[in-house]
């Protein structure tokens, strides 16, 4: 079995109760994901790194039914927007790939899920939201 590698470092923590790695602007207070070195809203430099809440509510969702360019994972897969308590909406994979099984405003929780095996046999993982409450 290959090693477990993140699709990209610095996006999320790979733990039992994972978190998205964001930042918060010291001037306007807006939160960002992923981490920024300037606030995209007010242009103030050096936002503070922060871990974002690992749960939220579903705001929009669909499923991708054919593999887009550069994607080697499973088809179909869920894709949507989850609202976090920090006042931001995040584009994310969803563990549920049947749009009919999801509802607006339902509770969602962050997970780390397998994507595919890379050329070296490593298991590539990424962040995704699943239906359910935070533990």
């Amino acid at each position, binding site marked *: 079995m290959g090693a477990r590698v993140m699709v990209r470092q610095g996006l999320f923590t790979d733990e039992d109760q994972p978190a998205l790695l964001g930042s918060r602007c010291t001037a306007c207070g807006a939160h960002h*994901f*992923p981490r920024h070195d300037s606030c995209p*809203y007010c242009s103030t430099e050096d936002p503070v790194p922060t871990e974002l809440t690992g749960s939220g509510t579903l705001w*929009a969702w669909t*499923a*991708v039914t054919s593999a*887009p*360019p550069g*994607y080697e994972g499973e088809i179909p897969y869920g894709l949507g927007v989850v609202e976090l308590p920090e006042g931001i909406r995040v584009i994310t994979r969803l563990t549920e790939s049947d749009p009919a099984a999801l509802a607006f405003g339902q509770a969602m929780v962050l997970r780390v899920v397998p994507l595919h095996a890379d050329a070296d046999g490593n298991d590539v993982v990424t962040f995704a939201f699943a239906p359910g409450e935070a533990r």
Partner: protein
Amino acid sequence: MSGVVISGVGMHPFGRFEGVSTTDMGVGAVRAALREAGVVKGGFQAAFCGTAYGGVATGHKVLSRLGMTGMPIVDVEAGCASGGAALMLAAGAIRAGQYDTVLVFGTEKMPRGIIRSSFFEPWQEEAGLAATPSFFGLRAQRLAMTSGVTKDHLAQVVVKNRRHGAMNPDAMYQKEITAEEVLASRVICEPLHLFMLCSPNEGAAAVVLTREDRAGASDAVPITLAGAVLRSHLPGSVLSESTPLSGLTDDTVPSPTALAARAAFEEAGMGPADVDVAECQDTDAARELISYEEIGLCDPGGSAELLASGATTLGGRLPVNPSGGLLSKGEPLGASALGQVVELVRQLRGQCGPRQVAGARTALSHTVGRGANAGVVILTR
């Protein structure tokens, strides 16, 4: 804005053309536009070429073939709005007194299938976060929530545009389609079915802009370029065409299309009620309806009602996409915005035969895409 007229237009049909190069198509469209404008070698002082996938010096290759070089030739990439961006730059240069006559064209051969964009980082592709149609699907779902748009409405947009496209010899699909056929096509990204999405394809379009007082050389009815505006996104909207990874829980951030439309109307000194005919970005069926609301052709939330009223069908109060739109023509990114302008110039001149909008005097075109970039052009006769 005034003082700038369109003195000639030309087009290479949109479709798939085996063995015809990006340069070939550009040459065809440019020749036609120059001929119509009565402009010969040496008759224009600058050229702007819209292209996103054409590669290095796309514009130079076209004009080298025609033996018309020496002047500045600038390639312009602004995603789906590349042609609109080129038009804005050309119009601004004429207004500033820099040039009398400028050639604007766009030419493109798109790869097949889901558009691969160098915009995305490799990890975004790997994680499945770079599937362009999925963002269209998410926007369509939000439109369903905010405006009561159903799958039947989405199918009706396709039926309408394909009916128009059946009368356009430059369109890729010249065959009508029924709502049942649209809804029977496979789901790509819920709620969007295959036939609700436009096909990336190939084509070229060209426009000659001239200072109003120098437009005498053309026999064609001069059409006034009353507004040509390009805008990018403001941060905050998670489903903006800027395709961010996150946004704010704030639904009041104006979209790039709303910004561009507002500025274009201001430049032209008119408003949405003045528009007689429009060409709107219908990359997918929902996008056309979103455009109605963002441009102000209806009130927020009113797009389904405007569509269902028949107003936006040929014969209605405000026909939208009389050319058949991108749903019929397909979308060659660098050429699509100028393709809209070619259609609207011909509409204002009364040259569109069975798809002619009777008595049209004011026309609006709209493109929006990656960047984000939104372009709005207003034409009058």
